[in-house]
């Protein structure tokens, strides 16, 4: 079948990736907008109210003008869902890279990707291992882009707790936010990974950020309430909401381990999913 040519697949995925990246940096998901509106309406601190005014206007201006919400358009973190008929190959990675290059030009995005040691900027938001691409099996051919800004990523943490320290998970989460203060642009969303391995737990924490934030389990709500008691508020200027939500993702782990990771995300919890037209 002609449309199964690798070149056609590459073009279709590049196009979908470009659109997902562009959409993600301009349009916030509706659950995130709702959470911000809810936080704004319950805020009583005058300075914090001013911050929500700016955030609310900013979301509208970005949508109206079709420009990025934030000048830190992040590094591209990409999740692919592959149905059985799509062959897993380098072609997929090349296609996603094409899509990010295109989005960098067309949106435009700020070129953020550099060599870690020479700090040389590639100029197109790609490099070794970047975009960061995660692949999972599924029913439909989907691409999700989560552009991750540095302010919040830089204050994220991993802690290897002991199995006997389960009650310290809450301290790890709250302490992460205390150390972060206003730097990650609160009100934040916290993705919490629990279990798995040293490397896997951080991936869980990031994946947790993709879950809807308009619902929380009792455990997530408890963590969220504890973070909010800190009173850090929007931008660290004080207020009743420091975290819009806490989302937890778990995986089985070694009987002698309890890995915990907290991936901090700014109020602009940007992500977008596009089905590949294939």
């Amino acid at each position, binding site marked *: 079948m002609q449309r199964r040519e690798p070149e056609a697949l590459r073009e279709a995925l590049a196009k979908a990736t470009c659109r997902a990246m562009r959409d993600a940096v301009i349009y916030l998901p509706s659950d995130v907008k709702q959470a911000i509106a809810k936080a704004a309406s319950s805020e009583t601190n005058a300075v914090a109210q001013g911050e929500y005014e*700016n955030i609310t206007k*900013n979301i509208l201006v970005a949508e109206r003008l079709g420009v990025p*919400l*934030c000048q830190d358009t992040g590094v591209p973190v990409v999740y692919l869902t592959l149905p059985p008929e799509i062959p897993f190959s380098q072609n997929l990675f090349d296609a996603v890279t094409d899509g990010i290059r295109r989005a960098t030009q067309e949106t435009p995005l*700020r070129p953020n990707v550099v060599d870690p040691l020479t700090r040389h900027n590639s100029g197109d938001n790609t490099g070794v291992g970047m975009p960061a691409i995660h692949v999972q099996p599924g029913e439909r051919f989907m691409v999700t882009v989560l552009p991750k800004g540095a*302010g919040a990523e830089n204050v994220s943490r991993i802690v290897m707790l002991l199995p006997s320290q389960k009650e310290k998970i809450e301290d790890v989460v709250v302490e992460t936010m205390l150390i972060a203060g206003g730097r990650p642009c609160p009100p934040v969303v916290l993705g919490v990974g629990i279990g798995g391995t040293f490397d896997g737990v951080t991936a869980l924490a990031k994946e947790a950020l993709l879950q809807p934030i308009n619902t929380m389990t009792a455990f997530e709500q408890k963590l969220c309430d504890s973070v909010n008691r800190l009173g*850090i508020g*929007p931008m660290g200027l004080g207020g009743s909401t420091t975290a819009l939500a806490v989302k937890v993702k778990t995986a089985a782990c070694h009987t002698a381990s309890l890995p915990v990771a907290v991936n901090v995300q700014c109020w602009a919890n940007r992500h977008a999913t596009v089905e590949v037209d294939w």
Partner: protein
Amino acid sequence: MTKTVVQLHTPLGDEILALRAGDRVELSGLVYTARDEVHLRMKSKGIPFDSEGAVIYHCGPVVKDDRIVAAGPTTSARMNNLSGFLFDKGVRALIGKGGMDSTVKEQLRGRGVYFAFTGGCAALAASRMTLKGVHFPDLGMAEAVWIIELDRLPLVVGIDAQGNDIFEAVWENARKIFGADQKMECV
């Protein structure tokens, strides 16, 4: 709760000494973007603009076709140890996000203020900006000094000229609530 919004225009003078932490301000007039690299450059080679009453904006914007596309604030704390010489040369205010340390708070005392602009609000900022020029374009888009004319950028006074610092007060309170002195070594 509604506080009046103070209208200010650059260049700034002694009117800023009356501002108090928490005051809301709308700032108009010229500002100059500066991040880490350009602070180092200006310290050794001099400030390429009239610094008397000037305002520095901690920002690395997205610029395309001589237009500011997105220009929210970057984390000011990175400039904690780089800002002193600016106040000696007449700079009256910094704009950024996240606040600055006690060194800067003391440098501002009796001379200037730190304005907080809401992080992530790059589209709102750009909608109130006109690009007027650039210094040091060789440093690249994020690090160059962009000369920008503001039309009522909505700010809040984070640190005033009397040494009041909202960020510090909020953070000290958060430390107490967490019980940081007892707990921080546990995890």
